[in-house]
């Protein structure tokens, strides 16, 4: 959980570091990583077609779930319809932990934890995008921590009772018994994924106005409280 949150902090930092014009990362190393970790399912480059996963040409700026002729998971299609677009930030979050950004994604890939590896991979993906020069260059590792997500906050014990009260607001839309009829289920989630997903809405990495608003007004303590409550539901 700590790793995931720290990197969300980093992602935020990308947008706020002014004028750092370094390379995103080492594209050559990225090509090797792609061949090892992605190529089994994805093609990229001249003549790339959909395989197990969609082709990844012109990825930056592309709406999620929009490669022609590919059948996506419900979750990815929903995020795309909500407006999720592949940028440095969203892509970094997806590759790091696919399910934290798109919970029901069918991409069966456990995630790439090392930020430098991800930076290299993105530099490679960017070479196969439209107008790679226009895609902002900034070192994702330029900032190490985000003050809002300090270890003390991350280690915070959630107040379960408070979480139970706060969760009553969620039940108007998310059914308590976990059924999913147009709004995804949020019961039986591991606490880490839950916290990451809520912060992803709060920081507007995940699109969706309702959830951005719901998460936006919850402070770290309240998100921890909700996580503590949902973690004890069976």
């Amino acid at each position, binding site marked *: 959980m700590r790793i995931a949150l720290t990197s969300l902090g980093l992602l935020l930092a990308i947008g706020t570091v002014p004028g750092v014009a370094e390379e995103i990362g080492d594209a050559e190393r990225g090509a090797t990583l792609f061949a090892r970790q992605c190529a089994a399912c994805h093609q990229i480059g001249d003549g790339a077609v959909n395989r197990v996963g969609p082709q990844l040409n012109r990825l930056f700026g592309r709406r999620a779930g929009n490669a022609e002729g590919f059948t996506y998971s419900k979750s990815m*299609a*929903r995020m*795309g*319809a*909500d*407006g999720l677009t592949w940028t440095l930030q969203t892509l970094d979050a997806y590759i790091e932990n696919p399910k934290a950004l798109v919970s029901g994604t069918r991409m069966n890939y456990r995630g790439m934890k090392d930020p430098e590896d991800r930076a290299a991979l993105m530099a490679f993906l960017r070479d196969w995008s439209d107008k790679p020069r226009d895609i902002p260059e900034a070192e994702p590792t330029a900032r190490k921590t985000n003050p809002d997500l300090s270890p003390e906050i991350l280690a915070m014990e959630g107040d379960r*009772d*408070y979480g139970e*009260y*706060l969760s*009553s*607001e969620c*039940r*108007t*839309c*998310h*059914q*308590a*018994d976990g*059924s*999913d*009829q*147009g*709004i995804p289920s949020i019961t039986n989630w591991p606490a880490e994924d839950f916290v990451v997903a809520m912060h992803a809405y709060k920081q507007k990495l995940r699109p969706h*106005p*309702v959830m*951005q*608003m*719901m998460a*936006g*007004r919850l402070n770290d303590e309240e998100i921890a409280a909700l996580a503590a409550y949902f973690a004890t539901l069976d």
Partner: protein
Amino acid sequence: MKLNRRHFIGTGLVASAILTAPTVWGQAKAKVVVIGGGAGGATAARYIAKDSEGAVEVTLVEANPVYTTCFFSNLYLGGFRDFESLQHGYETLAGGGVTVINDMATAVDRAAKTVTLASGAVLPYDRLVLSPGIDFKDGSVPGWSADAHAEIMPHAYKAGPQTQLLKAQIEAMPEGGVFAMIAPPNPYRCPPGPYERISMVAHVLKERNPTAKIIVADPKENFSKKALFEEGWAKHYAGMIDWIGPDFGGGNVEVRPDTMEVVIDGEVTKVDCCNVIPGQMAGKIAALAGVTDEAGWAPVDPASMKSKMDENVWVLGDSSAQGDMPKSGFSANSQAKVAAMAIRGELTGSRTFPAKYSNTCWSLIAPEDGVKVGASYEPTPEKIASVESFVSATGEDAALRKATYEESLGWYAGITADMFG
């Protein structure tokens, strides 16, 4: 089956059973009576009973044995839902520790802390929750009264037989006929409701009776999601809908049920179906209880939904005057959870937390073309105030509109499960 249910269901037995309740159950158990088993009342009753785990005796008084949701009743008019899908019984609630009495509350004695029912039964309470929805203001539309004319010109603004009647009338319109709506003045329940209804009527007529016309007489300059509705009407129902705002006399109306005529700014139009949505006020029992103001609504404390007139009474949902929240099922459900927490805190000493409220209203404009508006709210000393809000944008693509519609189906399933268990 729970012992208390066997005692309380039915009418004849109720009075004696309840009056003897203290000796049966012991003096210590605190009593909450909830009047109105709708979005606010059912939720409050359920949450107090569920979370107090038997420490509070909760009695729900509801006039109808089955609740028909107003939400999605427009989708029924449009042919997207069947009537049964709008109906919800109270069995699960009763099984969950709430005593459900199907009767009309006719009086509240706040000094004696009792509620009197039509059957004559008298229910004592420690805390009273009123969530009786709305009633119509007499004389708000000249020529129309609910008692005399609702069968000819239905309001369909309390869902049930009125909704079925309106649907039958729409479907029986002659070819090329005229549908009229008299839209209500502010404030009223469900701000986008009349306009979602117009969309659904237009959808039905476009399929069955494409030369028919729709006129809307509206006393309001502006209404909820107006830009979105206007865009949708132009796109799906071009030339069908004539919206007459106050600048063109939409606020100067009279109806003539006997001759099926509508008079707008002096001009008489013969109509085939007329939906009159009159001006509104708090459900009558709120006024009978003496907790309403001169405008006809019940002022409440923004932090708890407690009545400003009586510290033992709460007013939820449409009947309350609380500030910025629209009168919606979502709002009533949200307010009920704050109230349930506050009431439990007072009666059992359970922990209380700062109130948070929210609302989202979805509307369907055409098949798979859904839009939404919503906001979050927090109490200030003066009122419940809007903190942050969002609304669908014009020009959104079809995939997003479809996702929005599907989300509304999820919400309907969610809120009805949250109300009735």
